[in-house]
């Protein structure tokens, strides 16, 4: 009997579990292989839906589901947290002390938010004037704060890269602009976007398009802003320093941005047990893997995918989905003693909500940055890097596709793990 153990049943863990279960069906039923997946949370959260919660455009029940039915029948689900991993003895320890051993382990424990890493973030203003929307609780609390907001300065901030879905904070800023416009108070609200990057996005061509959109919408962009600490009034900072506002974001080089409402994206790290499994993770506790095969650099029978892996591409559900195709193949090859497939090219694509029921789409990989043009979908081309209503509908339709196609591990017609160059206008980065 070969034991395949999957750590974490979020997007990545669920997709790979279901794909492997289908691929290895006969061996599973014959008792030659088993697949176990471990996750303490009995509820699966559709994270892209979090973006809409603060604006009252979605709600808890719409973006959560019981975990068990999202997993194939032949996959054993253990509702517990992993507290330690020992790559030398091929075992993991659960919260109740139980040890599970494996022949092949797939780490899919995602990224966790670590707001405590930033001085002052979880101080007295936390969830009062300082908010985040990357957790369900945070998104809901931010929703209440927006309901009560009558005007002032809203600062949207990314503390440090990498973060999940690097466009989500930008989308939040765009949606906030539309929200305050619809409320009739846009003229009383100043929106500032403060990022550690030197532009609106990491990749130059997209940064340009997105920068223009910020300008059009009157959102102020503060680049190369490296958050050092957050001061909130309750914390005893003198009111004059804060211009009478609720708090201030202060950079390491002492630039200050006072705010009435802060929407921050806290530091992300991998799961805590990765930090204590020597040699497994990098400085941020993301598993060090070969970016093309997803095999751990620490030990050959360990793989990682999704946000937990340190691949130099975006941390996004779409990436987890593309990686799963390559990883499914590699697990089978490893079980059969064959050489691994180095097929993952870093492919990522995402819709970017721009407010007023429009969105744009970007598509890129390790070697090609997001480019304008058309995306060759099976049901017709979709414009890239350009706002359109169709893209917005695509983003909304994605929730259905997520539960019904992506999680069960089915392929999407026309969307391949490998990025397509057709339809894209190839530009020089300098353009």
């Amino acid at each position: 009997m070969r034991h395949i153990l999957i750590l974490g049943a979020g997007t990545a863990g669920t997709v790979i579990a279901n794909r492997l279960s289908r691929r290895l069906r006969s061996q599973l039923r014959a008792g030659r292989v088993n697949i176990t997946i471990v996750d303490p949370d009995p509820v699966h959260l559709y994270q892209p839906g979090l973006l809409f919660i603060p604006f009252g455009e979605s709600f808890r029940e719409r973006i959560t589901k019981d975990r068990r039915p999202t997993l194939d029948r032949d996959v054993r689900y253990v509702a517990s947290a992993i507290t330690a991993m020992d790559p030398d003895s091929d075992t993991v320890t659960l919260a109740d002390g139980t040890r599970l051993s494996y022949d092949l382990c797939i780490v899919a424990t995602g990224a966790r938010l670590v707001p405590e890493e930033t001085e002052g973030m979880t101080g007295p203003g936390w969830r009062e004037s300082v908010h985040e929307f990357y957790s369900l609780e945070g998104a809901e609390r931010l929703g209440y704060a927006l309901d009560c907001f009558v005007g002032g300065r809203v600062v949207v901030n990314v503390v440090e890269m990498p973060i999940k879905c690097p466009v989500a904070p930008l989308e939040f800023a765009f949606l906030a602009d539309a929200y305050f416009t619809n409320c009739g108070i846009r003229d009383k609200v100043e929106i500032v976007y403060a990022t550690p990057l030197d532009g609106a996005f990491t990749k130059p061509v997209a940064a340009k398009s997105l920068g223009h959109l910020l300008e059009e919408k009157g959102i102020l962009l503060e680049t190369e802003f490296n958050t050092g600490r957050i001061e909130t009034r309750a914390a005893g900072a003198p009111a004059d320093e804060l211009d009478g506002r609720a708090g201030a974001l202060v950079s390491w080089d002492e630039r200050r941005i006072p705010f009435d409402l802060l929407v921050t994206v806290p530091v992300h790290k991998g799961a805590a047990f990765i930090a204590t499994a020597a040699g497994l993770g990098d400085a941020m506790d993301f598993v060090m893997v070969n970016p093309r095969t997803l095999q751990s650099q620490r030990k050959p029978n360990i793989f990682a995918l999704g946000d937990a892996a340190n691949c130099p591409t975006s941390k996004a559900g779409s990436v987890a989905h593309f990686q799963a195709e390559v990883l499914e193949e590699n697990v089978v090859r490893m079980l059969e003693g064959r050489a691994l497939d180095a097929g993952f090219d870093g492919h990522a694509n995402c819709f970017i909500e721009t407010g007023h029921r429009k969105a744009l789409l970007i598509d890129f990989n390790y070697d090609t940055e997001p480019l304008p043009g058309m995306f060759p979908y099976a049901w017709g081309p979709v414009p890239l890097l350009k706002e359109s209503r169709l893209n917005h509908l695509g983003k909304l339709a994605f929730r259905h596709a997520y539960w019904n196609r992506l999680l069960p591990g089915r392929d999407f017609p026309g969307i391949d793990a490998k990025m397509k160059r057709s339809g894209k206008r190839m530009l020089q980065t300098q353009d």
Partner: protein
Amino acid sequence: MTTLAAVPRNAEGFLERVEDWDRDIAREIAREAGIPELSDRHWLVVNYMRDTYIATGSAPTIRTLGKESGVQVKELYALFPKGPAKLAAKIGGIPKPKGCI
């Protein structure tokens, strides 16, 4: 002595080839970025960055720099305003750190 003008750089001003670097080039890039003189503390960071890159193939993050280079994060920002990891990498002649995706 090599001069900065003679070595290929990318659009953002990073050297194309790690081997083109020397200490004079480093000083020139620093001046261009508004650091007139590189102090011992600057060199500590630049050398650490460069050594790590050459040994591991990737540049350390701010976090690792703060923990292991012997220079605290706060001082890093004082030495290299507006993003120490990026600027120290540029001065050290290595590619822009990948942490930015």
